[in-house]
């Protein structure tokens, strides 16, 4: 059997590797997506003071530190049995919207858009952010970098530093917002709304206006019929900071809706001997293997799954875009993996609108920043929706608030099985007997997992120049029999 190895996978946050096994006739037999790293936060959080956890866990991911900061902060609130005052909650969420905006801009423009704006089979040297700027113009390109910078600056202002966040403390936040800062963030939020609408218009013109792309999205080898997970508010609208986790099945019917304290009844994780990363699945259905369909326990937790799992968006402009997306794609739920990019832009607009709502709320400059901790600490769970999936932090402490045990289910981990399956489907659809494995085909395989944004967004600035990709075809003894190169 021939084996194709891509190592390391590049342009993702962290390390990854793909192994593709080919049948003798050239068709794809199986694909494995391996994660070759582990750091073990669950273990070394033990012994730490629980209020320190929110700063330690930001180092799980330097692209989405704010998500861990929020989930950890909520878990620590729960450990002490307290609710932060309204001002603190709103400051946290305001920070969180800026965090989403930085990440969604990075992913869409630096990773996703080059495949569409420049083209999926365009020369590799042009299929990057500079190729994108060449197409859309330097002015737009600079605007993209600028809007992401502003989102980073708002986070730094509220949380000390955009990557090293120190905003939360059990029961609230460490720092308030002054009127001057509030007015500044209000102006910037208006800018975000304008920029989000521009981004959706760009998507409409470039992607939806091109029949070939619409065909790839709807009919390419990128469809995966699995269940959809997402956090929703009391009206079943998408929410990122707070709410219940809702899962809908492949037909859009609610499978379950649970609070953070119930997560273990609904989610379990599986270990495979060939990856350091575990594979979560829906516990009530059980693990049925790497299979899709209504009977499968595999789900995804992505921008698309969040829109599938909710009844709509909580802000008016995003709601309009939500309706338009489902109308165009033939109703809910959507299983086209590449529609994740569209869903991500709908979310970008929601974050911008929500940011403006929060910053114009009189509570935001309030002085009550935290509540005292009078209860004995014991156990607490915090769930937020991270850019890359539902994020769960669960801590147990002793009577002094020292962590004795921790359990974490990270956003991208939810999608581990789904990414494996999407890669297999794309490879099976694209690599066939008698088909030359061209650069364009290699890129189109990569597009399958790029859609999930498994912390790919670090690559905001996908730089110009050579982006070679080498695939070795090996025989059973590991001898290279053929090399395909994309220079």
């Amino acid at each position: 059997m021939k084996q194709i190895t891509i190592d390391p996978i590049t342009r993702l946050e962290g390390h990854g590797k793909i192994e593709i096994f080919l049948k003798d006739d050239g068709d794809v037999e199986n694909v494995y997506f391996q994660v070759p790293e582990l750091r073990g936060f669950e273990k070394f959080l033990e012994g730490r003071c629980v209020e320190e956890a929110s700063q330690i866990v930001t180092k799980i991911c330097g692209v989405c530190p704010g998500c861990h900061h929020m989930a950890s902060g909520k878990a620590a609130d729960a450990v002490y049995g307290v609710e932060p005052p309204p001002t603190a909650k709103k400051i946290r969420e305001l920070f969180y919207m800026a965090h989403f905006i930085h990440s969604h801009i990075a992913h869409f423009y630096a990773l996703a858009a080059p495949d569409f704006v420049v083209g999926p089979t365009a020369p590799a040297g042009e299929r990057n952010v500079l190729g994108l700027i060449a197409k859309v113009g330097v002015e737009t390109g600079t605007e993209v970098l600028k809007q992401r910078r502003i989102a980073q600056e708002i986070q730094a202002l509220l949380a000390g530093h955009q990557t090293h966040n120190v905003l939360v403390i059990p029961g609230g936040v460490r720092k308030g917002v002054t009127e001057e800062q509030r007015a500044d963030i209000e102006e910037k939020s208006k800018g975000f709304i304008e920029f989000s609408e521009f981004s959706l218009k760009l998507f409409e013109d470039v992607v939806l206006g091109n029949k070939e792309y619409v065909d790839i999205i709807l009919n390419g080898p990128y469809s995966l019929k699995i269940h959809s997970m997402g956090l929703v508010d009391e009206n079943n609208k998408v929410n990122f900071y707070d709410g219940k986790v809702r899962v809908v099945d492949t037909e859009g019917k609610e499978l379950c809706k649970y609070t953070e304290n119930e997560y273990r009844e609904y989610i379990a994780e599986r270990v495979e001997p060939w990856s350091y990363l575990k594979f979560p699945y829906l516990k009530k259905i059980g693990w049925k293997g790497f299979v899709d369909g209504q009977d499968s326990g595999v789900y995804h937790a992505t921008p698309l799954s969040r829109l599938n799992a909710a009844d709509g968006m909580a802000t008016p402009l995003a709601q309009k875009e939500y309706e338009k997306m489902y109308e165009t794609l033939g109703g809910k739920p959507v299983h086209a993996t590449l529609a994740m990019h569209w869903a991500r832009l709908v979310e970008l607009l929601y974050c911008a609108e929500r940011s403006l709502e929060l910053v114009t709320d009189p509570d935001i400059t309030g002085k009550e920043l935290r509540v005292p901790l009078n209860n004995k600490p014991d156990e607490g769970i915090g769930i937020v929706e991270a850019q890359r999936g539902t994020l769960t932090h669960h801590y147990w402490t002793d009577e002094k608030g020292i962590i004795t045990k921790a359990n974490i289910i990270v956003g991208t981990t939810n999608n581990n099985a789904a990414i494996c399956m999407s890669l297999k489907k794309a490879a099976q659809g694209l690599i066939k007997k008698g088909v030359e494995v061209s650069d364009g085909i290699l890129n189109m395989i990569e597009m399958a997992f790029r859609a999930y944004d498994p912390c790919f967004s670090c690559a905001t600035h996908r730089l110009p120049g050579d982006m070679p990709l080498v695939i070795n075809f090996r025989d059973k003894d590991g001898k290279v029999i053929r090399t395909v190169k994309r220079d």
Partner: protein
Amino acid sequence: MAKEEKPKLKLAVYWGAACGGCCVSVLDVHEKLLDIIRVADLVFWPIALDTKYKDVEAMPDGNIDLTLYNGAVRSSENEHLAKLLRQKSKILVAYGSCSHMGGIPGLANFSTREELFKRIYDTTESTENPDNIRPQTEYKVAEGVLKLPEFYNDVRTLDQVVDVDYYLPGCPPQTERLVEVLMAIVTGAELPPKGSVVGALDKSLCDECPREKSDNKLVKRFYRPFEIEDDGKTCFLEQGVICLGPATRGGCGARCIEGNAPCRGCYGPPPDVPDPGAKMMSAIATMIDENEPEAIEKVIDTIDDPAGTFYRFSLPGSILRRKIT
């Protein structure tokens, strides 16, 4: 195309056991990116470019002018790349707390590999693993063999594995400091002696801390940050809250302090301080407002998790280094 211009600097950025935050600190040059790529070519950067390991192996030795290695050394893959990049680079910089001192992933040195695996793959409450499956460095599947790098028993700093030219500290380093260092190299400025810490100050964080300090740091007990009503102005230590300022090099811009949080030492020890934990303990010893041994012990007992706090970012590079097994 650019033949009459000075050759561009060849730059590589690689991560070992890292979170990606160091790479984000490089990306946070924002619009300056367009200036940087005029003077430097990025030849290897897995987060952003598709250069593969074999392409690096094919480069002549010393081909890369400057490599920023971030992340600790946790696995055989991290170690292999550290050695490979040392060989291919003229200047190798330990970029960020993890490669400098072990960083947050270095806290794993309080446990063994087995303790870590047991928690992650067996006892975590959401894990269902009745067959006690563990990831294997080599595993035979129906279609062939799948390999994973070896996960070592301990986390190491970059200079515990290869020779390092400079250290650029921080979790993550301040982007402005990186730009300054890059520009110094591009303009051919004289480089500091090998082994220097660059992109940081030669004094402690207390020297750049905006909080008000007096000469009186005596305390009767220590507090966790949530136990006090921080006034936002007074030195944390004077309020009885553990702050690693005296044991930490300045240069970060006191960003945590600006966020009303005490320092946790990500910039590493100041010059001539070999061990940040030892330095912090001696600083604390001078603060205790008691004379009797028993009373002193009581004050010390009010410090929770001293090892995990004093060595928050520096355990593998410290005199403790790891749990004794």
